């Protein structure tokens, strides 16, 4: 299980990083989502893996055997925050696209840089 999960984390992270380094804003936001998934799973993995041992105390469960609840709580918090920030990022890139007319992450196509740094082409 550990092997599979860590490979999964690696693939998610690599895809995310790759997308984040792409020039289009939409690629960046998807990359961010993927990287967030990877990181959340990473945090979760730090509590070690257990199957069928959710940290919910039914009467008679063995407290020692259940999964580490702390990383789960951390992931939940991180999940909420990254959800919020993804939304924000999305809106900001829409706004940037609105004011610059381009969906390049720098607000302009690289070839058109000479036209001036401060002003958009329009």
């Amino acid at each position, binding site marked *: 299980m550990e092997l599979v999960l860590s490979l999964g984390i690696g693939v998610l992270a690599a895809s995310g990083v790759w997308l984040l380094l792409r020039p289009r804003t939409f690629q960046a936001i998807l990359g961010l989502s993927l990287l967030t998934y990877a990181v959340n799973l990473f945090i979760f993995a730090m509590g070690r893996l257990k*199957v*069928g041992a*959710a940290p*919910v105390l039914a009467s008679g469960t063995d407290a020692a055997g259940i999964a580490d609840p702390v990383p789960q709580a951390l992931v939940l918090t991180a999940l909420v925050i990254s959800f919020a920030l993804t939304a924000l990022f999305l809106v900001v890139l829409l706004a940037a696209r609105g004011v610059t007319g381009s969906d390049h992450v720098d607000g302009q196509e690289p070839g058109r840089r000479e036209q001036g740094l401060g002003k958009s082409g329009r």
Partner: protein
Amino acid sequence: MSAPLILAYGLGLAQAMLVLAMALAAWRVLRGPRAQDRVLGLDTVYLNGMLTIMVHGLRTGDGLSFEAALVIALLGFAATLALAKFLMQGEVIQ
């Protein structure tokens, strides 16, 4: 063959089948060819994912994953609905 053993193997097999179904549906998402095929694939992925969760609940026997399954059953269609509507109308909310 004791009951737990049967359950373990049988449900494990069932779960594997469902994940396989997921994989096939995901193949459709990847391959398309049209956007509607992908949406259909995604819907199927969700569906099989939900069934996987249910069978996993059976395997572990604690029933704690019920809510997760219910979330897909009750609200999972929102995502695919949004996609379908996007295809149909060009925007999700007008």
